[in-house]
């Protein structure tokens, strides 16, 4: 118990619990993981909410993310400053959304952000092409890529504007029941 007190105050832990899908223990574990990545930068004592951020290079080397082709996008989508630097809050947020408990709506919002490479709030053809390249290690020919992208847009675009808005994306996800279990990283 004494160990716990030095990292977070009870009040902080309550706040984290209210704002994420984690229990106290998991939050402490997350802190451990966060601390582990850069023991020199991240203090053990978080009672005063120190303003510490870890750069994207450290985060994407976590075993949970390391092999993920979308690792940079994931981290960037959750980083508050947009550069991919994650504060502990962002870090907890990230795994909270990716946890099992998070509802489909919340996951969909962040999945959309992740796939929206150019951050224009639409998944347009270029985003799809990038996604496809990441998914297949660029093994497809350019023609195949355009064909697939066209098909995707044709299929999922409801309002006919040639790109996928969030509504289109969510509608699509509602038809892919596996999404909930696959958009999930267990820490």
């Amino acid at each position, binding site marked *: 118990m004494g160990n716990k007190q030095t990292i977070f105050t009870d009040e902080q832990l309550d706040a984290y619990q209210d704002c994420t899908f984690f229990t106290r223990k998991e939050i402490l574990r997350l802190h451990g993981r966060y601390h582990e990545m850069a023991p020199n930068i991240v203090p053990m004592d978080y009672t005063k909410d120190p303003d510490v951020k870890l750069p994207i290079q450290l985060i994407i080397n976590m075993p949970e993310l390391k092999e993920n082709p979308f690792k940079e996008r994931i981290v960037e989508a959750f980083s508050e400053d947009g550069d991919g630097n994650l504060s502990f809050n962002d870090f907890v947020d990230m795994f*909270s959304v990716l946890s099992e408990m998070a509802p489909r709506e919340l996951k969909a919002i962040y999945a959309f952000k992740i796939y929206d490479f150019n951050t224009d709030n639409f998944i347009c053809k270029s985003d799809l092409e990038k996604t496809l390249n990441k998914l297949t290690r660029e093994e497809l020919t350019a023609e195949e890529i355009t064909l*697939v992208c066209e098909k995707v847009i044709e299929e999922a675009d409801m309002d006919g504007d040639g790109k996928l808005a969030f509504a289109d994306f969510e509608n699509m996800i509602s038809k892919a029941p596996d999404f909930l279990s696959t958009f999930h990283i267990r820490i």
Partner: protein
Amino acid sequence: MTYHYNEAFENPDYHYSETLEIDRSRERNSSFHQNLPESSLDDDSLYDSYEGRSGRGQRNQDYPMAIPMASMQPGFRYSHSASRSTGPNTNPYGNPHTNPSFEYEPELAYTSPSTFHAVDGPYVRRSSDVSDGGSFSQRYNRRQADLVYRMPSSLLRLDSNAETYNKDKYKQEEKLIKNLASMSSRERVKAIQKTPKTMKEKRDIRNKVLMEKTKTFVSSSTRINCCTQCLYKTALFYRRFKNGLSEYLHLLQLWQKTLKVIRGKFGTSVLSYFVFLKWLLTFNIFSFLVNFSFITIPQLIASGPNNLSFNGLELLTGAGYFKKTVLYYGFYTNSTITKTENNSSYNMQLAYIFTIGIYFIICFFSLVYSMAKSFCKNFINLQTYSGSAAKLLCIWDFNITNEKAVKLKQSNLSTQIKESLSEVTLEVLNLSLTQRIARIAIHLVVWVASLGIAAACCAGVYFLSRNELQLLEGNKSELENEAATLVLPIVVSLLNLLIPFCFALFGLIEKFQYPRHQLYATIIRNVCLKISIIGILCYYWLNDVATSEKECWESLVGQDIYRLIVIDFIFCLLGSFFGEFVRRIIGTKCCKKLGVPEFDIARNVLDLIYTQTLAWIGIFFAPLMPAMQIISFFIIFYVKKVSLMRNCQPPRKVWRASQMTTLFIFLLFFPSFTGVLSVMAVTIWRLTPSKQCGPFQGLTSVIHAVSGWIHVLDSYSSSKWVVWIYRNLIGSVHFFFILTVIVLIITYLYWQIIEGRKIMVRLLHEQIINEGKDKMFLLNKLRALQTSKLDPPKGEQQERSSSSYQPSRQDALQMTASLERPFGRNGRDFYAESSSAGIPEKTGLSPADEEGHQPGISETLALALRARQQAEWEMEDDDEEDFRP
């Protein structure tokens, strides 16, 4: 053009309507030019800003003719051309996509709700008010119906001033907080957890809500302060206690780590097998606990010593020594177990029947519940998407963390995509009539063959088992008899192991249009085989063994089931040894072409369903059967895990884990569990229990135990209600008749409702498409009007834009200096400004573009708005100019 028109737009682009306000408030600071000094200062920031701006520009859709929607390049060209009108600018960043230093700017995620409370907050919310039809904002509101701070719809706010933003924001936040404060604490936590905002904002909101709560609390009841504090503390303590408890419960969950490893290495599809295994294991643990505590423990207290000798073979056959243990039905007594000290008694008959009955009822409901939940989750939208969209964007399994697995998955995906592309071309090829007939004929032949094989297996098993029954009557040594009993289970297990391979071979002959259909066909055939084998065994048990006048036929059935389960378990181990380990060695050492075997999820899950069915049947005849199941599942879990890790690779085909799990739960329910229930019903209501052993000896049927008990109860006045319930509800045909009718009526009603909803969905879908077309049409008209109006005064316009914008450039520069992020509000103002300034020029520059390129609706929409504004400005400008000398 009225503002009402705006309401019709279902377009997220409307979020940018705040640019309209700014435009309209005429703060023309022409901040477009601010990017010039910025760019010269810092490459990165310039890059950022370009990236963002072009993105934003696209969103704003200010210059759609120049932007083929999917590519950003022309956007850049545009910003070039726009800036060319004011000064030379070279943009070194040709293509932002390939730039590795591309940085993500969360503020850019403009419509995404995560920033709702950030700087952009009020705009977005406002815009959601403005465009009530805006699809994104609408769904945002829907999602957070409880959080929503919908302001009174105020289209007029378009005209309101920028200064009111902060006020509005503050107000809305206050409203939200009040809203949250009025909820119960649990709902509040849930609502906050669901809010897609950063942690800081969430915590902020939470703190404010708590403050609000305590404030109202204190103000309303200052006197009972002490009491409330006490209450508060207990509530807090309770919560912490609950959290601690849930943590410990979490620890109890089995195999968390192993499952994580499997998930990381093989993805969700293979994991679904292990999750299913775990789920079945919990069923068995529950049933074991119930049976052990209510049937076995009382019996153990009353039972005498066992004087049969034990040799190792019993473990396989289940006969011999085990005959006189609590494992089998025959050992249980029919007497009431009485403890002499306090005269309390325990009626074994009732305990036996009620424990098993209640267990089956609980099983029934939990199966129905999980089935319904799974159906509801996975089959809501049955209207099939051919799925390439979902395939692309939902297919990545974020669970996979293993390097090899990732690479494998990627190459699998690319082959899949290639396959589906070739399928598209194949579909175009229409099969000729003869080919089609040939295909159907092949299907028919294969189906007949597989059903024939299943029937032949059944017949073989039936005659073998009858023979064995007669064989047991022959006078042979005990050991020989016991060994002979093993023939039947071995044959059954062999059939179960080999016939599926045979079915798999059929797959080579058959050509299915979709691989999925082949999977379904194989599963159905295997289920047919397994269930019919179990069915024929049940028939043999109930029809031959039960009427054979043998001593203790229930125990014989129990032994049969025991043997079947044990031998099946051994075959499962052998199967994973030969099917996976040896196969891998062959695949990697001798015959490289074969490669590493895939983990066959369907076959393994069907095996599990098969053993579980046997175990359920066995519960009545051998109450401790669940214990066996627990042990075997435990071992299977580890063996399969090791074999999977060492020998297998994840399946190459797409495995729709959720849908297949639903199917498997359904299979577990429909032929399996319902079959077990009917077997139980026959045993309990129809068959005569054996005369010399078991709890029900001497009765004509098992259910007589209950009716006899009811007779006894009838004499006590205090338990009349039990008798009444039994006579009028459980024992009455009329009651069940009425119940069935009611259920049928409800089902019919729901069915009709579903039909109605389907029609509704179809209509709404059509409506969406129509709305899109309407928009297209209107906007095309608008565009035509706009071009015809703007083209003539082109020169004038350009002149003005260069002259009148010049002075305000200084302001813009000052503003930039005060901005940390390039895309604060001013950044956006700047967008509106720059692009609006650019429009006439653009239209003048590339009319050809406009002809050839069909802009998306959102682009057109933004363009239309822009055009309207432009027109209005012009008019105002003209008015002003009229006043000038």
